[in-house]
Each structure stands twice: as C-alpha cells, then as structure tokens.
C-alpha cells in the first residue's frame, strides 16, 4: 500500500515535470524564435503608427468562416478591396479572426482590440451580444456589426434592406411561374429571415395576388439534407420557383432542382439564390436552374464604413441601412436565358417604384398582412 502511494506521488511529480517541460520548451520557443518576438513588436509598432494617423481594420467571422461563399466571404472581400485601395496587406492594416464556436466571438473581439485595431467588424447577427459587451468595455475602439442592430456610441450597425431585394426576387418568381405556385425556404425562423420572407411574398402578390406562396423553414443554415427534403416536397406538389434564404441549407434546394432537371431536361424548375450570385451553384449540363439571386453587397457596406471611419467620420451609434438605392442589394442577371426581357423590364419597373418611395416594401409579417390586404 505504502509502495503504491509512493508510485503515485512519483508518477505525479514526473508527469508534472513533463508537462512543465513541455510548456517550458514552447515558452523558450517563443523567446528563442526572435522572428516570433519581432513580429509581435512590429505589430505593436504598427499599432503606435495607427495612433499617429495610420488606420487599421479587422473583422471577426461567425462560425461560417471567410470561405463560406456567403456574407463572411463577401465582407472579407470588402476589407481586401479597402486594403488594396489604401496600400495595406493582410496582417498589416487589415486582418480577420475566425470563430470556431459561439463562445469564441468575445475572445476574438478582445484579441483584435488588444492588437490595436481602430475599427473592428462583427460579421453576422450572431455577434451582436458579443459586440455590445466588448464595445462597452473599450470605448476608444470603433466597432461595426453587419446584419443586426447593436446599441452603443462606438458601434455602427450595418443592415440591409433585404426585403427590397427579396421583393424584386418575388417579382421575378411571379413572372416566371407557370403553375402559379412558388416556394420560400428560410434558414432559422427569426426577424432577419422574416424580412426576406415578407419582401418576397409581397413581390409575388404585387404581380399576381392569386399566386400561392409556400413558406417553409429548415431551422438551420447548414442542413443541406433538410433543404433538399423541403424542396422535394415543394416541387412535387407543383411549385416551380423556390427562393431560398438559408445559407448552406439552400445547397440542398439546388441539388434537388438539378436532380429533377437531370431526369427531365424539359422540367420547369427554378431556384433563386441569396447573398451572392449563385449562378455557378445551379448549372446542369448546358442549362442552369438558377433563375437569379438576391445579391447582398456586404463588401460594399464594409468598404464604405471603413472609408468613413478612416476619414474620421465614423457613424457611431447610427443604424446604416443599405438598400436598392445604394446598389447594396440587387438582382443578379447572369442567367440571361431564363431572365427574359419581359421579366427584367418589370423588375426595373418595380425597382423604380421602390427607390422613388411609391412602394413601401413590408419587412415583417404584420406589415406584409396589411400590404397584401391593401392590394
């Protein structure tokens, strides 16, 4: 018994020693590696320069990452464009931090604040509580949040009038449908995606109030299998145009439309993409099932806010709304075959009315009801 205890003690000591040795070596690594230390210093010095007038900007992605083919990627492209314009390179002037889980948002924001970035973007509404928390602690740093409204004098909230773009998507769908049934596939049911839904339904009904709109939510932005299942049901019951606002879930919608098209090249099935121009996603052989896409130019907004902030005109505490008038939401015209002259001219016509203020596009389900009743 005594011997056993001895062994445990010895083992513990040894393991502790090993752990410490392991730690020690990587610590030494940090010291030995002069370049590592230097890069830290150079960052510090660039931070000082920043205080002297040089400007640096960074962004924190949500769990999608900068290669999500959606708004994280778009935001990063905006920052890169901003950097090119001002002679910066990644790591020197602009950079991003990727989040692996919800709990990483605050950590990443804090890290960037500590690296003395002047302006930090939070990409996606999921970062809203984190931005508010960190912005409250660091009043001297500027923050901006995309797709949500956060309160604070040093936060700019960037939102998009997705309902306007979705309205035009609805017009396109209503013009294209032959069965008078169209579908909407949403990601997670909430304020943001309801904006897409309300705009789309309003657009459809404005063209023809008799068209039925089937609205379904997948409860996830990353469940392509569910997207496919919902699309299968919709297409089976006669829906011929589906607008998806569901991130990667929408890949399932595309997959189902392409399957149908593969089996029967004459089939009349269409998908309307979201956020980016999803023309590539829809190509089947010689044809393409992507009717159009509701493009949200996060990059334009990110670039715009960065420029304003660099010029000392940071719109702190304001809610910026980018819409059709700024070309920050638009309708893609890459599928020239499917998007006929007739459809384009009526899209233009409605766009005109929205920009002029003749049509007030609803952005919630309640507004939608009043809008539809007034038709």
């Amino acid at each position, binding site marked *: 018994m005594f011997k056993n205890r001895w062994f445990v003690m010895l083992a513990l000591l040894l393991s502790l020693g090993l752990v410490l040795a392991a730690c020690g070596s990587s610590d030494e*690594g940090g010291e*030995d590696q002069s370049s590592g230390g230097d890069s830290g210093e150079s960052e510090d010095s660039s931070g000082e320069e920043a205080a002297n007038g040089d400007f640096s900007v960074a962004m924190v992605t949500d769990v999608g990452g900068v290669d999500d083919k959606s708004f994280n990627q778009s935001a990063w492209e905006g920052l890169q464009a901003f950097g090119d314009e001002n002679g910066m390179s990644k790591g020197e002037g602009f950079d991003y931090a990727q989040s692996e889980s*919800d709990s990483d948002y605050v950590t990443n924001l804090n890290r960037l604040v500590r690296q003395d970035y002047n302006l930090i973007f939070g990409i996606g509404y999921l970062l809203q509580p984190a931005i508010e928390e960190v912005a409250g602690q660091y009043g001297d740093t500027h923050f901006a949040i995309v797709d949500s409204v956060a309160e604070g004098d040093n936060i700019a909230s960037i939102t998009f009038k997705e309902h306007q773009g979705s309205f035009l998507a609805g017009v396109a769908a209503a013009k294209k449908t032959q069965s008078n049934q169209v579908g909407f596939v949403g990601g997670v049911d909430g304020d943001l995606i309801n904006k897409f839904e309300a705009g789309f339904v309003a657009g459809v009904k404005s063209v023809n109030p008799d068209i039925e709109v089937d609205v379904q939510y997948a409860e996830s932005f990353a469940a392509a299998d569910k997207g496919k299942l919902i699309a299968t049901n919709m297409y089976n019951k006669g829906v011929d145009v589906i607008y998806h606002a569901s991130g990667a879930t929408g890949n399932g919608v595309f997959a189902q439309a392409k399957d149908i098209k593969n089996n029967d090249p004459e089939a009349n099935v269409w998908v309307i993409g979201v956020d980016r121009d999803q023309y590539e996603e829809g190509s089947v052989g010689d044809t393409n099932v992507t009717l159009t896409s509701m493009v949200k130019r996060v990059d334009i907004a990110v670039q715009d806010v960065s420029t304003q902030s660099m010029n000392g005109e940071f719109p702190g505490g304001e809610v910026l709304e980018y819409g059709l008038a700024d070309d920050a939401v638009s309708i893609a015209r890459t599928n020239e075959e499917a998007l006929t002259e007739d459809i384009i001219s009526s899209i233009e016509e409605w766009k005109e009315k929205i920009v002029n203020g003749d049509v007030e596009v609803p952005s919630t389900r309640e507004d939608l009801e009043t809008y539809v009743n007034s038709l």
Partner: protein
Amino acid sequence: MLFSNRMINILIPIISVLLGLLSGAIIMFFFGYNPVEGYAALWNGAFGDSYFFGETIRQVTPYILSGLAVAFALRTGLLNIGVEGQVFVGWLASVWVGISFELPMVIHLPLAVLAAALAGAFWGFIPGILKAKLGVHEVIVTIMMNYIALYISNEMVRSVLTDGADRTPEIFPTASLASEWLASMTFYSRLHYGILIALFMAAVMWFVLNKTTTGFELRSVGFNQNASKYAGMNVSKNIVLAMVISGAFAGLAGAMEGLGTFGYMNVKSGFTNIGFDGIAVALLGANTALGVVLAAFLFGTLKIGALNMPTEAGVPTELVEIVIALIIFFVASSYIIRWVFLRFKKEGK
C-alpha cells in the same frame, strides 16, 4: 520496476500529447508554416496575458464537467455519447431558472445550478432505464437524445422563454456565476466561479467512485456485469445510476455556459461540441478525475490558443483540430506505446 503498469498508464497520455504536438509541428513544417512560431502563438493566445489566461480557464470549466460525465459512465462500462444533449438541457434549465425567478443569491444560484444538474440527470436517465430494462444500446439512444435536446431547446427559447426571439433575456445577477472581481482581475475576461464547481465535482467523482460502496458497485459493473450480478449486485440499478450521475455532470457543464460564460441561451443551429470534446477529454484523462482535469486543461488551452494562431503566425486554426485529433489517435493506439515500453522493459532485464 520503473515501467510498472501504473506508470505506463500515466505515461501513455503524456507521450500521446507529445507525439501529437510533434506531428502537428511536422505537418506545419510541411505546409510551409514555422512550427515554433505557430506554437509560440498558441502559447501566447492561451497564456499571453491575464485576459487570455482567464478565457482559457473559462473554456476549461465546461470541459472538465463534460469530461467527468463521459468518464463516469465509461467506468461503469457505458458509452455516453449523449453528453452534448445533456449539456443543452442543463443550459436551458439553468437559464430558465435564472430568468424566471427573483430570489436572493444564496437560493437562486444553487437552485439554477441544481436545475441544470437535474435536467441533465433526467436526460441521462432515459437511455439508462432503456438500457437497464429493455437492453437498448445506450449509444444509439444517447445520439438520438442529442438531436431531441437540440431542437427542443431551440423551440423552448423561441416559443416559451421568449416571444419568437433568437435568444433569452439575460439571467438575473443573483443567478449568475460571473464575478466582477474575477473579470476585473483578468481584463474583462469571462472567467467565472464555475471553475470551483468543476474542480469540486472532480473531487466528488473521485470520492464516489473510490471511497463509497456505490462507487465500488459501479466500477464492478463496469468490469464485469455477470460477475457483479453473481456477487449479488443490482446491475440494472447501477446502470441507471451511472447514467443519471453522468447526465448530472453534463447538465452542470451546460450551467457553466448558461450561468457563467453567456448568461443567456440562444437558438443554436448546431451542437456546441462541449459534449463531444468531453469524450476526447475522458479518453485522454484515462477516465480518472485527476486525469480529466488535466486533459480538460490541455484541451481548453489548445482551443483558446488556437484562435491566436492565424492572426499571429498565419497558421490556420484547423491545424489545431488536427493536432487534437492526432493526440486522440495516439491515446487510442496506446497499444503501440505499451508494446514499445514492454520491449524496453524486457531488454532492460
């Protein structure tokens, strides 16, 4: 003498970690990154200043509890894959109590923590009773229960706790584990008192398993169900009990997130991975209380430090996932390490 069995059992995880880190360095090197810079960035990201140290401890806290949950069930021979779901219900229950009542802290906080443990325990009870009474394999049931937990908690947040919003209101400060004092000490990190609960629970697990009759029975069932039955133990009862206690640990891990880190619950579009990482933590910690604490510490360090690797050294965070996977791989293939040891031992004679 030097390579006793016990010694080998302790050395295997340590060697696995070292081999994992070494392989990570080799991979970094081959992909054109500087491994020394990479690990220095990892180290700075986890311990660079007191803020990051606080965040590391914050991350370690739920890992300890989810690791204990997996380890406890494994000691009774049950593979509880459902820790993830039990974390969800624990999180939900703690936040529910946190936002629904206004009570003095001495009652409110323990009540919220207890609710989380009970919710997790209930979520563990279902697969436990199914296994004990009907022989349904716990792996299948717990995996399914994960999805049930995910979607039920989403629906609860959206329809019951709020009116269609994406996240619940903040819990009342009387139910919060967060501490001004700890936060200000670590430059506003989200370090909270939960770490004390986690360490206490590790001690509880050690005590229950090693110093009580119940613990002896649980371990005995884990070694050999038939022998335990022959010795007059109630195998069914012990299976259910193991799952309930395991679930309670997992529920507490959820409370750490609900009452400590976040202070609210939001609609999740996927799993948090706290529970799944717990499996790795338990495996690395050899299913012992102390081992789990050390393994959780390592995993928390790797996870938080990894976030710093892209910005400081240009190494993608995915690489840390690879290192973690390699460590698990080496632990799982401990047979090889054991074999090498035994060869040395023979030659040493």
